């Protein structure tokens, strides 16, 4: 059913169709609209039976989800940014215990400086936690990925995180084809846990494992993620059969035929990138795009295959590893090992900075011409950087960096610099 609907609401209504039995809520922008909407659906009885638990922190939100899942209930929660980092110990724990919790991550920057706007720093911080991480390009995909997430999580006994860009997707009102209850029921069977807390068959879950077996347990977790590389496209193709539209999968190439330069990215920025590439194609430039949906597990073989014909690769990413460079681009470079294809990392959109088509085009053209640096910070205001460097070399007590930079920019009007 086509609806003109906010991304958060589309996700909330779709999650409700998946019949989660325990939903934990702790508010953090820009995730709030999702849990608010699910809360209403529980209150009105539209989603029943379901326990909606207002917890005291994100750490509790994931912990309640862990308990609920271990006791055999389908568990869902949502968070963002600082919230994800606050629950990180439990995030790892849910994966280690093999509990199929599904969580929406409304991607947002991580402070300090505190910043509520979108980038992917939060998702990257839990890259190695053992969760499956799926990135939505559009609100349609965000909604659809949740249906697939429950299916994947429960079949693999692994938690799944659906990442959707905060504000850009969560707060955008656009057309979404929402699934029906009949469709979802036909696609998503009831949760049959692999392990469950049951007095009739008592088991100890979460026992200590020492050096004698820890590596093996970890390797088995890795194998499950490797299995997911097969399961993710299989579930996506089954989804297409049931719902009549294509969503999910490992990755999605766009106009890669004959492309010398291929751009790789995650999430909603793919829309802008595709528009840019369309325009460049119209001008006869051989540029293509590969959108990665499954960041974890990382589909290295599929990436290598999709980029096999490319002469150069540009990775646009909304996060970076401070002191080194790209995160996604490191994975892409690893996938291209031995191919000799140069990879340019373009760090863009940090803390919600708009990524414009014009800047992207300039960047892609430079890359296509072999002029791009290996690590590019898109639209970096060099004069701001220089002023701060100058200040900090001139005197010791310069005060808070963030405030100084804002003052230089003119955002903070008062006081001398």
């Amino acid at each position: 059913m086509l609806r003109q609907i906010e991304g958060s609401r589309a996700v909330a209504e779709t999650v409700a169709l998946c019949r989660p039995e325990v939903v934990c809520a702790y508010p953090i922008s820009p995730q709030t609209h999702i849990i608010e909407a699910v809360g209403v659906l529980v209150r009105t009885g539209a989603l029943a039976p379901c326990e909606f638990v207002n917890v005291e922190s994100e750490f509790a939100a994931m912990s309640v989800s862990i308990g609920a899942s271990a006791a055999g209930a389908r568990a869902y929660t949502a968070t963002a940014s600082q919230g994800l980092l606050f629950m990180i110990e439990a995030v790892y724990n849910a994966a280690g215990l093999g509990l199929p919790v599904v969580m929406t991550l409304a991607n947002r920057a991580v402070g300090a400086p505190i910043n509520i706007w979108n980038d992917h720093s939060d998702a990257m911080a839990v890259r190695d936690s053992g969760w499956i991480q799926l990135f939505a390009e559009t609100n349609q995909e965000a909604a659809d990925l949740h249906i697939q997430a429950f299916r994947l999580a429960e079949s693999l006994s692994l938690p799944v995180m659906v990442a959707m860009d905060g504000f850009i997707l969560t707060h955008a009102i656009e057309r979404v084809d929402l699934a029906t209850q009949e469709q979802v029921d036909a696609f998503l069977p009831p949760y049959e846990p692999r392990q469950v807390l049951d007095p009739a068959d008592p088991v100890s879950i979460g026992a200590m494992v020492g050096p004698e077996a820890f590596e093996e347990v970890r390797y088995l977790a890795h194998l499950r993620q490797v299995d997911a590389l097969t399961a993710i496209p299989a579930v996506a193709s089954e989804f297409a059969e049931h719902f009549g539209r294509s969503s999910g999968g490992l990755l999605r190439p766009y106009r890669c035929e004959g492309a010398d330069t291929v751009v790789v990215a995650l999430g909603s920025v793919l829309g802008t990138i595709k528009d840019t590439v369309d325009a460049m194609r119209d001008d006869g430039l051989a540029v293509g795009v590969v959108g990665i949906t499954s960041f974890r597990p990382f589909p290295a073989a599929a990436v290598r295959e999709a980029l096999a014909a490319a002469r150069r690769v540009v990775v646009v990413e909304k996060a970076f590893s401070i002191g080194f460079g790209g995160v996604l681009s490191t994975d892409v470079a690893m996938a291209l090992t031995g191919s000799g294809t140069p990879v340019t990392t373009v760090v863009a959109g940090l803390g919600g900075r708009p990524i414009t088509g014009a800047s992207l085009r300039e960047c892609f053209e430079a890359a296509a011409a072999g002029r791009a640096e290996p690590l590019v910070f898109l639209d970096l205001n060099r004069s701001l950087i220089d002023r701060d460097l100058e200040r900090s070399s001139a005197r010791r007590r310069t005060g808070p960096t963030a405030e100084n930079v804002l003052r230089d920019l003119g955002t903070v009007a008062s006081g001398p610099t």
Partner: protein
Amino acid sequence: MPEFATDGGPTAARESGSPGSVEPPGSGGAGAAVRSEDPPGSRDATGPASPSSGQPVKFYQVGSFAVGNRLLDPSYRTVQSDALRTNALDSGHRACQGCGEALGARYALDAAMRATGGSMVAVNATGCLEVFSTPYPESSWRIPWLHSLFGNTPAVATGVAAALRVKGRPEVRVVGQAGDGGTVDIGFGCLSGMFERNDDVLFICYDNEAYMNTGVQRSAATPPAARTATTEAVGDEPGNPFGQGKNLPVLAMAHDIPYVATATVADLHDLERKVERAMEIRGARYLHLFVPCPLGWGAAPRDTIRLARLAKETGLFPVFEAEHGVVTAVSQIRRQVPVEEYLRPQGRYRHLFDPADPDGPPARPETVRRIQEIADRNIARYGLVGPAGSDAPGEAGPSDPSGRPYETGEAR
């Protein structure tokens, strides 16, 4: 030396010329011959002797359940010697000799098993209990058991309870358990949330007053002056500084939850009854169980029960019950003892005494006096010592088997 409200007193006992006497005061007065805590049929062996009548034959254990067991009505006898008893925590685990936590957990969870017909789930925090009971692939647990993290046990228990409710299995009850670190420190945020929402979980804190699993570091439950690895007995004020403390039972009561109780492993029937009472109630319940740790306290394994009893009998650990934020029952001190008797056998307080004369007067009398003040405040606050020779009505200890206060399920 503080004054004691009971007849006689430690000073009086010493001065009355009874060397080697182990009996604390308060048992000799005629009016105190039969306490409400005494099991039926038992009598103080001294009879109505006066404190000054030489050397009365007395047994500290008279009136308790250890020696008195054979005098009890069979229905009051312990179930732990019964081959058919419930068995939540099986033998073969790796707790230290004399571990108060292992003892407390077994009695508490066995009682919960009896109360629920075995229909229960336990959620366990990281810590000694978790480590010694489940070294992979072995497990001592005969009940469904989940360990997630150190600080999230109350929230995990909430999740289990929510799942059971939504699954239509309300008969399966949930117990969360943690040490004092997992309860009063790192788990406190989640615990307060669990209390505030009145989630249907019994949470048990096994309080051994420090982080024992990591090697005896200070927690917010560590008492003043106690030596831990992070409050070493060095410097001008050795041991743990005197702070304000973090009184979890009172904090639990401040949440107005339906049931809060404290207990020690010195009175296991009292513990069992409190667990049974807790399982009669729905909503958030809190049980704070005092469990001595021989390793962490530098005490002899054989002294675990004795130290737990002394903690109660000094007033340092008040044993009481509360419902909806109101104290409903207090286990009165039977024979009040000065805190010194509790401190002296413990290595963690060794610096308070003279190493050349460990049985002599305290080397740090001021510190001992401040600890005594804490005990005295507890005694006044909870009314732990009734009028001499009387049993104040309504204040009979919950360990009173003849009262069997919870048979009817009514709040007292």
